[in-house]
């Protein structure tokens, strides 16, 4: 944008002066640039430091950690902590490592993402194109509900899940994630479908397509980007969840975050900081990969998904 505003002045300079042509050299070291880049660099160090320390610590042996400082790179790289964190770190009496939590989290995240997006996209579609009496009313409750602290609804959901016999099971947690993902995702899809040209919908109606026909054959194929955004929101949100995992599952089915917390914050035994950091890093890896792969879409997702808090 600035190029647009700056280039006329540069051009004017070049025209007016008979001196050397082209843009002024050495602008990069102006005082303003030093301040801007200096501040950004300091901030970048603050943001990168924890990741760096995590990686470095997870590659050191315990004796080196006890002697050295946390910022120094490992003298001897060892992958032992990673192996131990993955396959033999202990939570209580259980010593099969984070792998159990990882697979639990996969078994929770995949169905939750699919179910919550299926429900929310159909809801959004109904709200955008098939409004019925009361639909906006229910939608308002849903959006207001997004602001209610989860703690208020924790126990009623325990009762509901107990009544239908799903308390403590993975499917129960999948339902909980679908419920709490609904406000933001429904809003996302509703806004997206509303912005699509209405003629499209009308033409399909004239051609005799019904509710599901239009959804499956027109809306779904035309809105793949928004589905990708929804998948990103949901994968990171559900993978990172702790509260629902700890409330609605049993120790055997704990998701990764809960197990990680139990491994690192367990009071028994000697603290193995390298194993802890390896475990922390492994848990953070999935959302980090999603983040780095999705790039701009992630930014778009948080702009929409920020409400989830």
């Amino acid at each position: 944008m600035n190029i647009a505003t700056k280039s006329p002045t540069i051009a004017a300079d070049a025209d007016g002066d008979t001196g050397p042509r082209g843009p002024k050299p050495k602008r990069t070291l102006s005082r303003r640039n030093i301040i801007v880049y200096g501040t950004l660099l300091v901030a970048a160090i603050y943001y990168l430091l924890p990741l760096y320390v995590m990686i470095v610590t997870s590659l050191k042996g315990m004796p080196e950690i006890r002697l050295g400082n946390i910022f120094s790179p490992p003298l001897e790289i060892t992958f032992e902590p990673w192996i131990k964190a993955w396959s033999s770190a202990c939570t209580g009496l259980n010593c099969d490592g984070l792998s159990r939590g990882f697979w639990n989290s996969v078994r929770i995240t995949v169905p939750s993402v699919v179910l919550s997006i299926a429900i929310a996209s159909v809801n959004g579609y109904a709200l955008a194109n098939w409004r019925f009496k009361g639909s906006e009313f229910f939608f308002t409750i849903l959006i207001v509900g997004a602001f209610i602290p989860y703690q208020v609804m924790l126990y009623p959901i325990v009762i509901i899940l107990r009544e239908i016999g799903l308390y403590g099971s993975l499917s129960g947690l999948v339902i909980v994630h679908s419920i709490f993902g609904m406000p933001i995702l429904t809003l996302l899809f509703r806004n997206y479908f509303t912005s699509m040209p209405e003629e499209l919908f009308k033409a399909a109606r004239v051609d005799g397509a019904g509710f599901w026909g239009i959804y499956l054959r027109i809306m779904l194929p035309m809105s793949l980007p928004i589905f990708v955004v929804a998948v990103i929101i949901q994968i990171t949100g559900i993978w990172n969840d702790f509260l629902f995992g700890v409330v609605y599952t049993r120790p055997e089915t704990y998701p990764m975050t809960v197990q990680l917390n139990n491994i690192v914050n367990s009071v028994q035994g000697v603290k193995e900081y390298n194993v802890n950091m390896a475990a922390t890093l492994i848990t953070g890896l999935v959302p980090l990969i999603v983040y780095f792969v999705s790039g701009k879409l992630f930014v778009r997702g948080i702009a929409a998904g920020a409400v989830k808090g």
Partner: protein
Amino acid sequence: MVVRRVNARQHIDERSPMSESQTRPPSRLLRNLNAKIASIPMILTAVVVFAGGTAWTVLYSFTNSKLLPRLNFVGLDQYTRLWAAPRWLVSIENLLIYGVLSLIFSLVVGFVLAALLDQKIRFENTFRTIFLYPFALSFIVTGLVWQWLLNPEHGIQSVVRGLGWTSFSFDPLYNSEIVIYGILIAALWQGTGLVMCLMLAGLRGIDEDIWKAARVDGIPMWRTYLFIVIPMMRPVFVTTLVIIASGIVKVYDLVVAQTSGGPGIASEVPAKYVYDYMFFAQNLGQGFAASTMMLLSVVIVIVPWAYLEFGRRRRA
């Protein structure tokens, strides 16, 4: 439309479900049936879980439920006990300190970073990626990393001491006076990237001509930001404020991971109080009362905002 024959109207209705305002034939409930069936999960969630669950919790907060919920009303007993509990008072105090500081710092830091990134700099994408990546991580991971960084024996404190400043002392996680600031540092690390992103989007929405006009008038850059750009970004600030505020009330995982509420009860927060009383102390009534107070605090934040937004739209 109204004078049309019934048959024709039914036909029209089926064709254009948007025409809501007309009086309609007896088969009203069956009209648009598929959309209604498809919305059942949403309706159930909204009515049963969100509205019903909230009402249920508020109702049971007036009972003396212990291990199981019982409808044995005791008036405001739970609330009197709640506000007499030292742990709850510490939680509220922590939430206030944490809330005010994290609001101020994340808005200021987020805006400054966004403004710096908006200076048409090189490597903008790299910097943005760096500032935002912690937001992809969970609070558990955040809490555990910062627990390690702030570890007094190995972390920042020992490194600074190793450099020769032997009296240097910075161990927020083991000092009950400043423990909440240790949590704040971690929370800011995780959350400012989001604020920066929202602010950057707001800054990009400002018309370039405003900048040109300000430059022509010779207004210094900081004044342009302070008196022109920021007032213009009011909606962005309000949205961000609401997002941060509703996140603050929910803070739970971070504290659990970083300090487990310790040392002692120095870093307790309301959300943790609720969880512990509901699922550990088996004192449901206290948990319900505490969660109702959390709801109340959200209402205090959200309602004026909704009122302002709504009122503004009315006037406009």
